[in-house]
């Protein structure tokens, strides 16, 4: 009995090491290019062709990527650790499609916050997984023809063309981790609108001042998210 326990324990340790090795190997295989942090000189692994912003894993500096050059834009705050289904660089599957989480942005809405996870999908596509207290929405940044002239006039519960505005809100960007395909501004207030066409389809409109971005996707069941190497 004692002997068996020892064998099992060894096996578990061996398995864990192997799993981490596998993830590490995959993570390295996904690196497109490497740069050096202008602040501390540490290596910055870039995994996405159109990455615009990354955080140095050593000194936590925010680094803006412009063409072939890198530009230090300051030290970013470290996000407080919170329980999450996702982990940066730990691949997941959603409805049989693979995604690699590369970064996340956290927005605060007062007493709580939500997170927008940047996922690299198959064929190097950009996806966003919004996680807010058990509500999960998977979306792509695409141009959507909006049924109103200005997002500022939209009210929750009202219909606009084929859409119903199900939520109108705002949040303050409190920080980010990993690498992102778009620049963000810490402490900036972002406004958003959720437009539903029914049946789980979702269009999100994000706007700061006059700049509007649209995301199209759907609500997903969090239980459908599986870690590839769990």
């Amino acid at each position: 009995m004692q002997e068996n326990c020892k064998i099992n324990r060894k096996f578990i340790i061996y398995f864990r090491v192997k799993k981490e090795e596998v993830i590490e190997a995959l993570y390295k295989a996904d690196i497109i290019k490497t740069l050096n942090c202008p602040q501390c000189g540490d290596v910055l692994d870039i995994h996405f062709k159109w990455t615009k912003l990354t955080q140095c894993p050593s000194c936590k500096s925010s680094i803006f990527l412009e063409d072939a050059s890198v530009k230090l834009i300051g030290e970013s705050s470290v996000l407080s650790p919170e329980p999450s289904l996702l982990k940066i660089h730990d691949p997941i599957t959603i409805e049989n499609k693979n995604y690699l989480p590369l970064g996340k942005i956290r927005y605060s809405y007062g007493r709580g916050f939500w997170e927008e996870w940047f996922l690299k999908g198959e064929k190097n596509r950009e996806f966003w997984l919004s996680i807010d207290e058990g509500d999960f929405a998977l979306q792509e940044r695409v141009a959507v023809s909006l049924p109103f002239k200005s997002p500022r006039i939209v009210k929750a519960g009202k219909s606009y063309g084929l859409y119903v505005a199900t939520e109108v809100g705002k949040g303050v960007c409190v920080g980010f981790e990993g690498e992102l395909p778009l620049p963000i501004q810490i402490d900036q207030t972002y406004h958003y609108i959720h437009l539903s066409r029914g049946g789980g389809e979702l269009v999100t409109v994000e706007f700061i001042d006059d700049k509007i971005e649209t995301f199209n996707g759907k609500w997903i069941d969090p239980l459908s998210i599986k870690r590839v190497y769990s």
Partner: protein
Amino acid sequence: MSQKYSLKCTKCAAPLSLLGGGRVQTVTCSYCKSVLDLNDNYKVLSNFRNVKALQQLPFELGMKGKLKEVEYTIIGRVTYRENEFPHTEWSDFLLFSSLYGYAWLTYEGGNLIYSKRNRTFPNLGWNEIANQSVVVVDGEDYEPYDYYKAKIIYVEGELTWVAKKNDEIQFLDLIAPPFGMSVENNENEIEHYKTEFLDSKMVYDAFTVPENKREYSNAFHPLKPFNRPWLKALSSVALWALMIVALLFIGMFFDGSGKNLTYFSVDNKQRVNEVFTLKSNRYLSTIQLKAPNKKSLNNFNIKLKKDGQTLFTLNQSNAYTFDPVTQKVKEKLNSWDKDAKEAMVYLHLEERGLYQISISPIDRDLSSSLVVNIEEKKMRMNYIVLFMIFLLFALVIYRLMSWKYAHKLDEERGLYVSYSDSKIETAWGNLSMWFFIFVLVIIILSINS
């Protein structure tokens, strides 16, 4: 996502702690029962101090349990009372998971329903939903079932919305047991929840509810699926078995309906010896005795012989079979009833060939007569008929209970729902089955008579 807070009640200064994440809007002080608004500096919104004592429920705030693969903590409770008679009361417990967010566990007299916010419901207005015969959500057909209004009568712990005493909410329930959709309409918005009827024991076990606090219900609930797996399986097996037995029955009916060997009559004047040849020993052989009255039948002795050896004797008081070699009594059998006018003797005659039947009057002075008919290849249908009746019963009982459940569901339904095509098809399916059973019963009865 959650951030942990600790605060004091602005009414009584009792310590409060928040467990339920960033969407919590109100918290009720467990001491003074004041509802505090977290969006407005913990302002007191209402108070439940004078609410009459409510029934003790099996669940309490702070209990933890795993439901639907998710670890939840009970963080709040809302108790509703339906506006209309019989003023049904139920309690919704708010569940929170830091990974999977919020869900509800509804407790209604021992029945437990799990529900979670649904985002895939089609964009239908309140009245549009009630007028649909079926609403399709995620490929599942939900039938509108009931519409009702209820008021909040009690609140405890944390809630993700501002709930005040006597706030009125409209509910529209759609069902596809064990699942359902609950559409809730308050003053501000319409929300959709996917509901599921859960096994009470499983939930109590998950939250480790003490045995003495557990309550179970056998009462009807629209989401409680009609689930009789054993009866359903028996019914399916019975249907196939009945078809096979019916075919066998028809085959045997034609093959084993009997072939006449001899037919004669006897009276009280003399003894009659009749010889017949048994050509087939398949199935049974029968001796049918028919008299005009009971005295006539009781006035005869019957003896069956082969090659001079007695095989069988019979009169009203006793019946025996004999060993053909030793001529000793092999078995004593029951004879016919005293008041009978007719008797049918089934014999398993193993050997083919010549047989002799002797029929002699007991009292030659008693005027009596008897008609005797001997047949071979006669199948005794009694057992097969009994088996068919059992199969019929097994076939019908599940469908009868299922029909009774559907009837009860319709009786309790608060909304009229027009019959869908599938329902009509099912109705036709049931009609054909009843017709089949009816025809079978008629055949059995006619053969038995």
